[in-house]
């Protein structure tokens, strides 16, 4: 029975339509107003939120997959449901990333293994796709931000 659990799970996105999980070219999927060019993530498709624009027409766009850290933090305590925590809970870092072209800040977890000591405001990061959580059948994918070319904090004792 145990060996059944080893079988590779079905990889599915944790939320439909928010990002392209392709390993070679992942991207957040947003929209852009066809009249005023304002970007949206998550996607806006009903009515432009720019008060000077009343467009109802939007193109789907792939957001920049590189940006710089606006700020960062971590979760040292297990967040409550509906967050699905591993057992035991493993602290993770969160980053808010400035995208230059879109002139917006987008949040996400930091890539697995990166802690706050690996991060700084202004640091370049790139989008990656990793597993957020798993159940019996599926592993659920999510976007994360990984420092560009930085190395992870050594977990070894000094």
């Amino acid at each position, binding site marked *: 029975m145990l060996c059944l659990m080893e079988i590779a799970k079905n990889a599915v996105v*944790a*939320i439909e339509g928010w990002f392209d999980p392709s390993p070679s070219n992942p991207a957040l999927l947003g929209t852009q107003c066809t009249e*005023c*060019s*304002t*970007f*949206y*993530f*998550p996607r806006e498709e009903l009515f432009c*939120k*720019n*008060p*000077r*624009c009343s467009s109802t027409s939007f193109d789907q766009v792939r957001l920049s997959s590189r940006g710089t850290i*606006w*700020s*960062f*933090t*971590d*979760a*040292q*305590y297990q*967040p*409550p*449901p*509906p*967050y*699905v*925590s591993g057992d035991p809970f493993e602290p*993770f870092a*969160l980053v*808010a990333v400035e995208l230059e072209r*879109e*002139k*917006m*800040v*987008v*949040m*996400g*977890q930091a890539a697995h293994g990166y802690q*706050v000591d690996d991060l*700084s*405001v*202004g640091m370049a990061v790139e989008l990656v796709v990793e597993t*957020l959580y798993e159940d019996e059948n599926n592993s659920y994918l*999510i976007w994360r931000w990984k420092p560009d070319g930085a190395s992870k904090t050594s977990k070894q004792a000094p």
Partner: protein
Amino acid sequence: MGRVEPVAVLGIGMHPWGKWGKNFVEYGLVAANAALKDAGLTWSDIEFISGADTIRNGYPGFIAGATFAQALGWNGTRVSSCYAACASGAQALANARAQILAGLCDVALVIGADTTPKGFFAPVGGDRKDDPDWLRFHLMGATNPAYFALYARRRMALYGDTHADFAMVKVKNSRHGLANEFARYRKEVSVEEVLASPVVADPLRLLEICATSDGAAALVVTSLDFARKHSGLSGAVKVAGISTVTPSFPNTVIEMPNFSTDSAVTHEISGPTFRDSIAWAAYEEAGIGPQDVDLAEVYDLSSALELDWYENIGLCKPGEGARLIRDGDTQIGGKIPVNPSGGLSCFGEAIPAQALAQVCEMVTQLRGNATGRQVDGAKVAVSANQGLFGHGSSVVVTK
């Protein structure tokens, strides 16, 4: 907007903050009856009851105004109930003021009360993939402290604020709250104790993040005419300005519970942030500015956030907040005391009651009744807070 006519605060009342585990209606009744007694009025004198809702106590919480009206005894009084997250209390007060200034009533009772669960605030239950508040927990594990921590880290990077600066805010507030009978935490802490408490969301530590509490606060507000006739008082404390502003597009600071800011491709980002705009709307109604303020009650959801508020409400320039706490300017006896009540740091957050509790403290201070924590000669006070999903809240009270 321009100046707005004031209303009088004839009565204030609170139920002590804590984790009492009772029904929120019980707390609300205690606060309401205390406010009525303080005003020298009875429930039958009230012409309008304005409830601030709680969303964690079932249907009675969603229609709090009616729940309290029924608890006090149905008597046909006009009612409203409103929810604006942390700003609910100010919004309930604004509704009461509007009725008074429109001439629809002379005497109103405003109540907010809450019973809260333990631990982190979690989203309302169910599988709700179209609710950003649900999704931010599910997809990112982004709790409320995580957002406060982003602001704190940003201060450290931009302005050079230190862990010790943040800890000093907690230390100050813990001293202020010692003499406040309504505060839940009345214990002085040192910088060392704060820095020794466990990190919750880097750089914020357990003692720097506000807890959730049960509590209730109530106000009796009236027209100035009624106040004069009723008590012959010309000295009643007045509500001179209330801000209930929403953000202006593009909102370029990441806010709970969002995944992103607005995109600013169509605008030059130079104007004030949303938090910057909140108190100014209340100042404008009152015809005053930050230089006129004798004390402030601000929403210290975290120690570091209190420093942001110093700048947002104009007590100093951007980046100078830490200097105020280092120089002792914001402690009682300093140039501009902030959170003489002890703030959320000593209370913990009872959402619909908190903005009203801020007003209760300001009125107590302006009456000169804040025993053990009195700001000498206080004549003008301002409160500020911000509710989830774009709810500004600020109240100016004057003598």
